């Protein structure tokens, strides 16, 4: 027996740690917390502390407000331990009677998790108004060892904190002394409470209180039967107590034992209820002490374990919840990645003269020695001679802004259009009714976050040194070109004609996320392996000679014809630069606009595949096997 218990105990501890890890991991799923779920509370409050070899039985008096729970508790322990009052919902904290020396062998805080333990000092203790969950305890020498007896707050009054305390006690209890009255046995709140108790296989002892004897003798079986049918509870023992306030106050209330068997489903009218031959009141404490502790303990522990692994209410339901929530996230992600986030029809191009001058500059730097000096001389001479002409020209012409500044402005305009398109698209998506996305997108789409985004984007965009970036690009391209192709010289020779070369029309598609298929055109650049935005630059050529792909092949193929060769090369500059710029845009949009959304979606989607999830599932399976074996061995 003890080895079985320790085996269970080990598995339960494992399960708990896996569950906590899984919960920490799944925080972005917005699921209700683990604590507060009935099965998890049972795990924490009953299984973890009670799966030990030192067996003890927790007996709790439970029921609706003002039906005499405290009266019955006092009768049970034969002393005025819990104050009684004619007013409703006065017992606000549980009271526990503990056998001698029990607290030295057990840590009471372990036994009653979720309560602050306070030594009992007066019968009025449980009436205290206190926001904390207190539990008053007191030694009692008349109590059988290993028996803990509790009085609990109500389960149906307007003080909801009382319900919570009663539920916590129910979760760790083995035996529930269920107090019913004719007014309360059919109340929704009462039925709900005991339905849970029945599912957890608690031992139920019913005390039907405040009966109008002898009139009610024929009614209580009907009432109790309704109660049993509604809740699924099956009382082990039934007692009835008369409505006698005087006796109740002076601890002289008699409890008459009754036999009771609820009607079966086949014969709903047949209720087996009876009065024993000698109808004498009994001492409830004696009845309790005579119970089979071991059997009861095994029953309730098994009940708790079964509850834990039940498909519809235990751990499997939690796992299913995670899975379906994760599925929601997946569909949200798919919704987002289904279409392009934005499509830019006409990405601005750097004017050809800029390319020409950049290539010239590069060429200048390539020259070495005497040749460079000569060229430098002629260049400065030319500049000097032409200066007055240029000056005059600049006077007559309207002030001209540097071409890269014009480009910057054009690009900013495109960036704005793109952002606008993305916002429109996200608005559309948020109106599709996926609750997860809607709540997340709402903050992204608000005016303040738009303002912030534009500010950051603008700052980043204004800081770029386009000229330097472009020159760097030219340098890299030309250097690699030079090393690969001896014909590069012919490009330099023709470069002056480049201004006449037609410029390609570049269209760019921005995609979200790596779920499902991403657009199918042209080159795809995944900006970062971890992030899921995808840029797609499709270069379409105005002149119509070269194919959409811009690369070495196109260059070499048309190398023979001089103009085609130049055109291909120029196009490559355009495309590569546009690519670099769109990469920046994609990255900026991902980090500043979408923020953590892609990561959140991705990790949520991946959760059911995670280690913790599998570990929990496995432990539950293990537990199920162990439980099956237990049933076989028993």
């Amino acid at each position: 027996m003890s080895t079985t218990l320790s085996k269970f105990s080990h598995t339960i501890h494992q399960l708990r740690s896996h569950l906590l890890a899984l919960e920490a991991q799944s925080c972005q799923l917005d699921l209700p917390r683990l604590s507060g779920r009935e099965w998890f509370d049972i795990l924490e409050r009953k299984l973890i502390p009670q799966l030990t070899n030192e067996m003890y039985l927790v007996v709790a008096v439970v029921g609706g407000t003002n039906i005499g729970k405290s009266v019955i508790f006092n009768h049970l322990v034969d002393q005025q331990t819990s104050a009684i009052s004619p007013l409703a919902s006065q017992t606000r904290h549980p009271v526990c009677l503990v056998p001698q020396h029990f607290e030295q062998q057990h840590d009471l805080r372990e036994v009653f998790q979720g309560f602050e333990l306070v030594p009992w000092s007066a019968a009025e203790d449980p009436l205290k108004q206190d926001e904390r969950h207190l539990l008053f305890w007191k030694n009692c020498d008349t109590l059988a060892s290993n028996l803990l007896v509790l009085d609990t707050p109500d389960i149906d009054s307007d003080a909801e904190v009382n319900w919570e305390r009663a539920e916590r006690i129910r979760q760790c209890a083995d035996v529930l002394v269920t107090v019913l009255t004719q007014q309360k046995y059919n109340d929704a709140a009462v039925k709900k409470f005991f339905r849970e108790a029945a599912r957890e296989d608690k031992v139920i002892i019913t005390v039907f209180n405040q009966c109008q004897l002898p009139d009610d003798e024929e009614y209580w079986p009907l009432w109790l039967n309704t109660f049993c049918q509604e809740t699924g509870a099956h009382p082990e023992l039934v007692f009835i107590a008369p409505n006698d306030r005087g006796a109740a106050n002076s601890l002289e209330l008699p409890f008459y034992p009754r036999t009771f068997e609820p009607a079966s489903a086949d014969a709903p009218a047949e209720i087996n209820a009876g009065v024993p031959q000698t109808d004498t009141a009994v001492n409830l404490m004696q009845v309790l002490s005579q119970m089979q502790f071991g059997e009861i303990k095994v029953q309730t522990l098994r009940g708790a374990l079964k509850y834990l692994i039940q498909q519809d209410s235990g751990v499997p339901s939690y796992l299913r919840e995670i899975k379906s929530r994760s599925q929601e996230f997946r569909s949200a992600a798919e919704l987002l990645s289904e279409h392009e986030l934005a499509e830019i029809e006409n990405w601005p191009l750097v004017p050809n003269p800029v390319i020409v001058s950049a290539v010239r500059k590069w060429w200048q730097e390539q020259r070495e020695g005497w040749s460079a000096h000569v060229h430098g001389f002629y260049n400065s001479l030319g500049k000097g001679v032409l200066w007055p002409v240029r000056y005059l020209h600049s006077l007559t012409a309207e002030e001209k802004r540097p071409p890269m500044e014009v480009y910057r402005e054009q690009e900013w305009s495109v960036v704005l259009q793109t952002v606008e398109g993305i916002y429109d698209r996200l608005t559309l998506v948020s109106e599709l009714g996926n609750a997860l996305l809607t709540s997340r997108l709402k903050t992204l789409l608000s005016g303040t976050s738009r303002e912030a985004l534009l500010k950051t984007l603008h700052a980043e965009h204004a800081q770029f040194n386009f000229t330097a970036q472009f020159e760097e690009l030219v340098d890299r391209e030309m250097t690699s070109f030079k090393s690969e192709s001896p014909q590069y010289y012919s490009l330099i020779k023709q470069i002056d004609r480049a201004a006449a070369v037609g410029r390609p029309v570049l269209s760019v598609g921005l995609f979200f996320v790596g779920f499902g298929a991403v657009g199918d055109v042209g080159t795809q650049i995944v900006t970062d392996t971890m992030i899921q935005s995808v840029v797609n630059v499709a270069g379409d050529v105005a002149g119509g000679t070269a194919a959409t792909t811009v690369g070495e092949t196109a260059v070499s193929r048309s190398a023979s014809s001089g103009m085609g060769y130049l055109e291909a090369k120029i196009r490559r500059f355009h495309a590569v630069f546009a690519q670099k710029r769109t990469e920046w845009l994609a990255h900026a949009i991902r980090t500043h606009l979408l923020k953590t959304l892609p990561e959140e979606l991705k990790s949520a989607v991946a959760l059911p595949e995670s280690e913790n999830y599998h570990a929990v599932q496995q432990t539950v399976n293990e537990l199920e096997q162990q439980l099956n074996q237990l049933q076989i061995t028993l």
Partner: protein
Amino acid sequence: MPTSELAQIEMLAAVDNLIHQLKDWSEQQTHWKTAQQCQAVIQQLLPRLDMLRVRLESPLVIATFGGTGTGKSSLVNALIGSYCTTSGRQRPTTTKPVLIAHPETDLDRLGLDLSQFHVEQKKLDQLQNIILIDCPDPDTSESQFEENNLTRLQHIIPLCDILLYTSTQQKYRSARVSQELIEAAVGRRLIFVQTHAGLDEDIREDWKQQLSQQFEVPEIYFVDSVKALEDQLADRSPDPEFAALQNILSSQLGKSERLQVRRANLLELMQNAIDHCTGKIENALPAVHELESFLKQQQAVLTEQMSQELKSELLVSRNLWERRLLSCVSDSWGSSPFSMILRLYNGLGNLIASASLFRARNSAQVALIGALQGARWLGNRQQEQAADDRMKRIGAFGLDDNKLRESQLMIDGYAQAAGLTPSPGHQLGSLEYLQTEAAHVEEQFLNDAGTKIDGIITRLAHKNSGWFTRFMYETLFLALVVYALVRIGKNFFYDSFLDESNILAIDFYVTAGVIFLIWTGFLVMMFTRKLKRGLEQEINQLANHLAKTKLSHGLFPHLERECRQIYAQQHSLERMRGEVHQLRSEIAASRILGSWKVNEPTQQAGSQHVP
């Protein structure tokens, strides 16, 4: 007519007026989501109010309400003094509600679906003013969805005028029943009864304390229905507490009380709905405030930008200033020698400048040409190249497409967050729309600036061309003319005639002409310099002033309108709220009937914002 009756009529008129206002409010066109939701609530309420008004005079419907086993049916039986509805020990006893009425009461007028009820007609005096309904309990049902006692009860409650709320020592703190009571109590009067007096202790004190948090509790009756019925059947007089309760129902709810009850119910329903709506609107208002303040901020940025731009352009356009100033002075001086010279120069200057002037793409120059000329200029130009040109000017004015797009983006976000759905007429997303709007704004701004510039010019011209200045310049100018004329006259009349010296050669006239030109040029230049004194300061002042003046609307006039409308709606709702609370407080608190407690509207609500 007796005064009390007049007061009644007055009250009725006030209530009718309020309902009318509410109806109007709920029919206003709005693009604000929250207001639309509130309007839907009000529109749901209106038919119910109508129903209550129709029934104003018919007998009161009194229903029992309370947890299972609290003795609702027993109480009904005891009240009419016979076994009429099954009371018993098996729970729940009553599932189909029982309706007990006097045979002469016209049940059809009540708007009840009688098939729902088990109808009992009893010829009893105490039933002449009332209809009693014995209802099922609210606390044995656990589901909201299937047909059960709770849903049955929820169907009946809206038709009742008074609830007879029964409870016991065991049940009076039951959460479920209290919750349902809060739901049910709005628009109804309440009578509180603790039953089972024979078995239970008196807990009325504690109960009253608990109830008082949410209800007005005038009195709680403590009765033993079983004994009361037995007493009546045995022709004994029931105990005084029960007799008091019976008395209220049978005689005190007569005609006058009936009106009172119904009106109070009606007002309470309205009040509840309005409170609900104001709460909703108050919750949603911060987003609208945000939108509004952003709109204001955008407008401020816009004016600032335009006035800065205008300032720098005005400071550059020196020639135009001079010409305007000169023509102003010469106009005011009328015809005098020097002013004729000024006019001549001005005319020449205009002639030269006109070609380049009309090519002005510059907004500031348009403003500077003057309101009148500018308008003419605009009128001429508009036909030819209006849209195109205006766009260009706007571009030069700092309102380029990128800027427009940026504010569009942000405004969209704010409008969405505020829950404003775009009206079909104004496609929010279109840039063309915004461009036209921007052109309007700019035009308005320039008109304003043009008038101000005219003012500056007149002021400058007057300040710097007083009689002394005029006298000085006229004298200086005439001095040369007179001198030349004297020379010529002397030569012609005296020297050549008497002295016989030669008549002045053509050389003299050429020299004189040149000197004349230089002299006049110098004078005109000096004069214009004088005129321009303080010009820079004036322009700075103008720019600052323009930056501060409010445009009549910004780039998003329809959103601004929408915001104003929202505030107007909120205010009219607040006003109705105040009125309904006022009316309700005028109905004196009843001595016998309890009711739901209403929180009075707080003063600061809604008043912090004045549109």
